[in-house]
């Protein structure tokens, strides 16, 4: 955020001088700086273009999110929040099942019809949000209101990491109110999607440099309430299923653990595991060879048997990565396959709206496939149809 764009178009005559060339692609510093897109008043009217009883809840969540973030940490006061009229000024919000956006930055939106578009239904855009409506609506509202206050995308900054600049989108800023902020709600490159709708410390600093600190001490910002992430996944009823992952033990640093086709040490090797590996998927099968217990595992797509004296249950919570289904139509299901290719036998299906799908293993041998467990069924799914579950998604993993 702090990276503000301040081009304003009110001074048409001045800007015309800069546009006297045959192209609009003028160096950004040539066209900025006449007037900031910063609002001249700290009181900013907000209105709805198409309020209805059907979108009342989304409007309420939006207002709450803005009150808890931009308004709470500054002198800003967003007023109105009623139906727009022909001549309404300020931020005019249109509710539509489309990509949320703002048509410009800051005061460029003043009085612009449909200047901000918010999505409250997500039937045609970002459909994963249908499972977590209030969270999504609030997170997106905080980001779009950031634009409405004049803040550009943080990842567009020249001092952003190179891999983040690849995601640059939209207009640039010209005012740096702080150093690059990877945690900004305005940063596409934030590892947490839009910062979970919670302003970062630097977001707040930048906000206050432009719009002042709140005149009265307001309560500390409550983070956007994320749906409670219930235990990682449905507790297994089978005791064996609790032993989902192993780590390697009793293997020296210069050695590896062989994965065997059958549960005996003379069977064919089908893979090997480095001595220090953990989070190795247990496939709920045991066998005995000369009174020694063997367990079936999967490691990077290689399934086979290992002697149990070389593995222990891995208690590391990081082993439990959960996914949800994406890119599957409502009336369709996702196939679970026996092995990592599309021609493999189907062993089960997953509904299009399923989440809390536990990843057990993955392989890149035939593009990226994930071995997952869903309702006690283990199988492989192409990664195109799964998305790592964001905190706040899937209201319940029961």
């Amino acid at each position, binding site marked *: 955020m702090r990276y503000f764009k301040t081009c304003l178009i009110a001074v048409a005559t001045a800007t015309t001088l800069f546009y006297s060339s045959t192209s*609009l692609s003028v160096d950004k510093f040539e066209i900025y700086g006449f007037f900031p897109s910063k609002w001249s008043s700290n009181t900013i009217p907000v209105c709805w273009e198409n309020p209805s009883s059907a979108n009342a809840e989304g409007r309420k969540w939006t207002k709450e999110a803005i009150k808890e973030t931009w308004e709470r940490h500054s002198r800003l006061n967003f007023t109105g929040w009623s139906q727009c009229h022909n001549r309404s000024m300020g931020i005019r919000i249109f509710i539509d099942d489309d990509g949320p956006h703002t048509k410009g930055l800051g005061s460029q939106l003043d009085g612009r019809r449909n200047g901000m578009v918010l999505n409250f239904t997500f039937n045609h855009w970002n459909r994963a949000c249908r499972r977590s409506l209030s969270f999504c609506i609030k997170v997106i509202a905080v980001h779009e209101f950031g634009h409405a206050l004049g803040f550009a995308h943080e990842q567009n900054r020249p001092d952003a990491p190179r891999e983040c600049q690849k995601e640059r989108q939209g207009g640039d800023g010209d005012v740096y109110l702080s150093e690059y902020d990877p945690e900004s709600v305005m940063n596409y490159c934030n590892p947490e999607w839009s910062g979970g709708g919670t302003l970062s410390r630097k977001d707040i600093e930048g906000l206050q440099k432009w719009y002042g600190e709140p005149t009265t001490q307001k309560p500390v910002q409550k983070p956007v309430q994320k749906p409670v992430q219930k235990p990682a996944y449905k507790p297994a009823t089978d005791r064996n299923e609790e032993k989902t992952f192993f780590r390697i033990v009793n293997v020296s640093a210069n050695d590896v653990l062989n994965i065997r086709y059958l549960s005996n040490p003379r069977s064919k090797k089908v893979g090997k595991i480095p001595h220090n590996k953990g989070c190795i998927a247990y496939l709920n099968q045991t066998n005995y060879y000369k009174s020694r217990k063997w367990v079936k595992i999967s490691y990077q797509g290689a399934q086979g048997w290992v002697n149990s004296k070389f593995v222990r249950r891995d208690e590391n919570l990081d082993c439990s990565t959960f996914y949800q289904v994406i890119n599957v139509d409502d009336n369709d299901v996702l196939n679970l396959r026996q092995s990592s290719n599309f021609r493999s036998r189907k062993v089960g299906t997953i509904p299009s709206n399923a989440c809390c799908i536990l990843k057990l293993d993955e392989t890149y041998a035939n593009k990226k496939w994930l071995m997952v467990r869903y309702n006690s069924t283990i199988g492989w799914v*192409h990664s195109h149809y799964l998305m790592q579950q964001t905190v706040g998604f899937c209201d319940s993993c029961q």
Partner: protein
Amino acid sequence: MIRAKMLSALPLLTVFISSISLGACITKDTQNDDKMTVKSEANTFDFSRIEGRNYYLLEEGFTCRANAPGKPILKSWKNRVEFNNGDILIWETVCNDNPTVKPFDIKNFSFSEDLSLLKYQSEEYSFYAEPPKLCPGGQWCPVTELE
């Protein structure tokens, strides 16, 4: 002797230069250039003719990364420009939620007579009354990253 050689080379040089000029003329004489007739009429151009219109620059296989949970890669147009309230909005990809807004200046644009085509920064854009469907579902079209 040298002068004689230079003189004999003159016709050849003339032919060469002529062929280059002719080539250049042929190159410029494209159908699309012919269509672009509304140009640089800064004082007479009526913005209301294009108000609200969206023009798209499509390129097969173009993608972008959406700012959405899971950061999906979406099919996208390469650019979209919209004429809105006397401004031009440069949208870039379908993933962008914040277009660059600039004052409209007709000098930077050429339109076909029927306003169905637009030339902007040497590229030709097409008018769509509704956004072009990038997949049967519309505009939200995730693609597999590794494919």
